[in-house]
């Protein structure tokens, strides 16, 4: 069943001058249609200004469509009355790890969401325990968030969302400010939640290594979807990705370069194993 369904979505950023007259209209999302299946791990790629973050903010009603509709399950994001239910269902992790933690103690921060939706105290403790366990942060529960690394802070933020028992987690460039180890830590956590708890994951990023294990990759440019498919399908189009000024994983790029030089290799090689398996017969 589809969990996210956007139809003919258009969003304009409107800047107004002091007299409230429209000064400038920037179309950030231009007639976007998408249907995301429950339980999928979907990666959204695109350079800055491609509209990917704007799209993410539509998924839990932080932004509302200028035209068109966004449905999460059977809730219209534009419906004010069901806004809290919507936000319970779709959790969001943002880019800056410092600016999304509210509590002064890790476990209190994880409880912030459940507190807001009025979960009884006993139930809340159970949820906090389970959420911390799910992201592997139980050992840090009494710590101040200020003493954690970037990757750990993002995991706390994810735990805070898990404690709301969501169906879908949207991560808006969660690793952009992290070092390589922090990045791995966060992606591993998200992949686990996707596999074990069947949570739909929508990961917005521009790091290609992070999308290899996705079920589906969407590439956005100028507010539109320009590519949509499995990682293998999308990374078969190295030329197009380069034109969009996006990276490709180094294995894919090497395979592409070799193919350009005349070697017989299949399209869309993603992993080291694939590359080696395909290269060995040629080299031996």
């Amino acid at each position, binding site marked *: 069943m589809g969990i996210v369904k956007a139809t003919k979505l258009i969003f304009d950023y409107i800047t107004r001058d002091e007299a409230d007259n429209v000064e400038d209209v920037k179309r950030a999302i231009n007639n976007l249609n998408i249907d995301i299946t429950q339980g999928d791990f979907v990666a959204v790629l695109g350079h800055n200004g491609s509209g990917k973050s704007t799209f993410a903010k539509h998924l*839990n009603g*932080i932004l509302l469509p200028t035209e068109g509709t966004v449905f999460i399950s059977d809730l219209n994001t534009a419906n004010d009355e069901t806004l*809290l239910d919507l*936000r*319970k269902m779709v*959790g*969001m992790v*943002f880019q*800056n790890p*410092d*600016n*999304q*933690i*509210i*509590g*002064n*103690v890790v*476990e*209190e921060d994880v*409880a*912030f*969401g*459940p*507190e*807001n*939706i*009025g*979960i*009884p*105290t006993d139930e*809340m*403790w159970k949820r*906090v325990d389970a959420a911390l366990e799910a992201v592997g942060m139980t050992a840090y529960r009494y710590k101040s*968030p*200020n*003493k954690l690394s970037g990757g750990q802070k993002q995991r706390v933020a994810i735990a*805070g*969302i898990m404690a*709301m028992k969501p169906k879908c987690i949207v991560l808006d460039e969660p690793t952009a400010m992290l070092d390589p180890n922090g990045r791995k830590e966060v992606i591993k956590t998200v992949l686990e939640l996707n596999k074990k708890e069947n949570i739909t994951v929508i990961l917005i990023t521009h790091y290609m290594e992070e999308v290899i294990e996705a079920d589906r990759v969407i590439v956005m440019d100028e507010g539109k979807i320009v590519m949509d498919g499995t990682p293998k399908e999308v990374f078969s189009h190295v030329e197009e990705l380069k034109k969009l000024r996006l990276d490709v994983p180094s294995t894919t790029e090497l395979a592409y370069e070799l193919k350009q030089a005349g070697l017989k290799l299949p399209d869309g090689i993603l992993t080291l194993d694939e590359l080696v398996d395909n290269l060995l017969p040629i080299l031996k």
Partner: protein
Amino acid sequence: MLRDITLGQYYPVDSFIHRLDPRTKLFGTMIFIISLFIADSWLSYGLATVFLVIAIGLSKVPVKFMLKGLKAVLVLLIISVSFNLFLTDGEVLFKFWIFKITREGIRVSLFMGMRLIFLIVGSSVMTLTTTPNALTDGLEKSLGFLKAVRIPVHEISMMMSIALRFIPILIEETDKIMKAQMARGADFESGNIIQKAKAMVPLLVPLFISAMRRATDLAMAMEARCYHGGDGRTKLKPLKYKREDILTYLYYLVYMSICIAVVFCF
């Protein structure tokens, strides 16, 4: 390193006072302050001394820490004591040039000094034994009645607790911006007051902008996590009175009754 700065002055040991509900401690501090203001005799001050010594003893916090707070008010203390000492009329005991010291002056200034010292040390007992978080929680709950007169108690306490989280981050950020501007040749130390104030602009503008950015981000993150004010909120750690708290309240009642009795009867 700068992030290690702890706010407030919480002294982490386990003691009877530490375990009390923050509301009990807030109320106790209030009772103590009232008792200081109605005190008008040596006996009253003696009672207050006993109350304070018991509190300090039970808190297991070294006295040294209790007295630290006095440093900040030392000047105020000296000024108010000397004003009372020299400017109170009455039976003159000692006189030189334009100064005269009276029996009443000595009495009033001693009371004044004790009152100030007790006030500071008394509140230190509370802040040293209660985490800033617990204090905020305690304030929110015990001032809940003010909601009836449209004072946004929940919002204020939420703001306090967010400030507690972000102050260390902003301190670190200040340090970073300062270094970045020093790398561009900024000088924050030399010059007169006006030059120094001007030199702060390259520090304060980026800091303000950063704080605004963080506030916007945080507001969005809070909204995304279903924050919609205090209505219908539950708590992970709701405040609950225990037996010790009830005993402590009884003790307050006894103390207050004796204090009032002393004021009226002597």
